[in-house]
């Protein structure tokens, strides 16, 4: 909720001021908006690791979402809803994130015979906390080459950030932390030597 009360409120009669503040507060607490997730920005630590890993270029295939997965297409951030800024669900967001990491490391090639795909298994944000908020993501990553599976593992992360009383503070903070969660998930993948080996010749 981004509307705030005008400073001209201070010229209102006391009763109207109280009523107006009550109405505004109710609106702040109750009204919902839908917005896209922030753009994904690659982690340079991930990119540098990839560049030094000896991995060969790969392409990124489809990342599906598990059937009936809560948070697959929309995440509730208090009264707001956040949808994926790319594709139709958050599996597409994860695929785009992984592709951007590989691109920046110059390890993305859409013609490569090595394909990284996967399935989003968990996608959750709890943004209701006053002291802390948190989120969890889990995904299955599969590397195939020539129809042969070279890597097939689940990776999961949890992430925590400071909570806030006001939705106008807590909601953008939660949205801003979603790309951080995805970066942590990709970091967990890249840190797995078996994944790197699967990308080598």
């Amino acid at each position, binding site marked *: 909720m*981004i*509307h*705030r*009360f*005008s*400073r*001209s*409120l201070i010229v209102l009669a006391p009763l109207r001021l109280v009523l107006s*503040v009550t109405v*505004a*507060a109710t609106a*702040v*607490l109750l009204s919902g*908006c*839908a*917005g*896209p997730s*922030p*753009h994904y*920005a*690659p*982690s*340079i630590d991930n*990119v*540098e690791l990839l560049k030094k890993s000896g991995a060969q270029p790969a392409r990124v295939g489809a990342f599906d979402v598990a059937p009936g997965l809560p948070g697959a297409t929309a995440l509730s951030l208090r009264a707001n809803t956040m949808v994926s800024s790319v594709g139709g669900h958050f599996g597409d967001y994860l695929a785009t994130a992984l592709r*951007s990491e590989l691109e*920046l490391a*110059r390890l993305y090639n859409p013609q490569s015979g090595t394909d990284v795909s996967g399935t989003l298994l968990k996608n959750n944000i709890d943004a209701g906390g006053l002291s802390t908020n948190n989120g969890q993501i889990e995904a299955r990553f599969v590397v195939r080459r020539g129809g042969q599976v070279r890597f097939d593992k689940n990776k999961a992360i949890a992430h925590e950030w400071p909570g806030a*009383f*006001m939705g*106008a*503070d807590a909601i*953008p*903070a939660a949205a*801003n932390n979603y*790309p951080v969660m995805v970066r942590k998930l990709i970091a967990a993948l890249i840190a797995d030597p078996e994944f790197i080996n699967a990308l080598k010749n």
Partner: protein
Amino acid sequence: MKRFIQLILAGLACAVLFGCAHPITMNPDLGAVKAVTAPIDQRVALYIAEASKSIEVTTSAGGGDKVRYFPYRDMEPGLYKALSDTFREVTMVRDLGGLDKLRTEGKALLITPTITTQSSSESIVTWPPTQFTVELSCKVTDAAGKTIETVNVSGQGRATFDEFKGNFSLAATRASTDALTKLVKALGESALLRSQ
């Protein structure tokens, strides 16, 4: 229970009446940051100290509120992308040990960015900034620490209510993208860098 409700109402009234600093990001649109000239045949290192990444800046926004964000943390991927598109090879260094290692590995230029920002809004009823400015200065030094070039660019971002209602950070995103696009152009056109 009554005390809890009083605390909630007091907090709510304070927040509504006195404003607060809302978190936004400056994450640029990396797809828009592209090389405009042939890459410079140089190996460069981007130096952003770990301490710089934790610097949180607070600037003006709408309705008397403010916004807060992390300029170095948010622009790091964009700076890395800009240098990747401009130079043959890019690496990241975060401390003096990394700098020494780089110098012993051979010829490399060191690029140290300085970021300053401003934001504002004409609105008195919405808080996201409608105008955002990113001043980006990149000092380029050689292995001996001698300054070879300093490139200064200014990125501007504007966003109207209809645009930012789905993305509170839009003006900031546009400004950082604009600054990086200009940085790629300015670095690519630098005769001093091409002659090294």
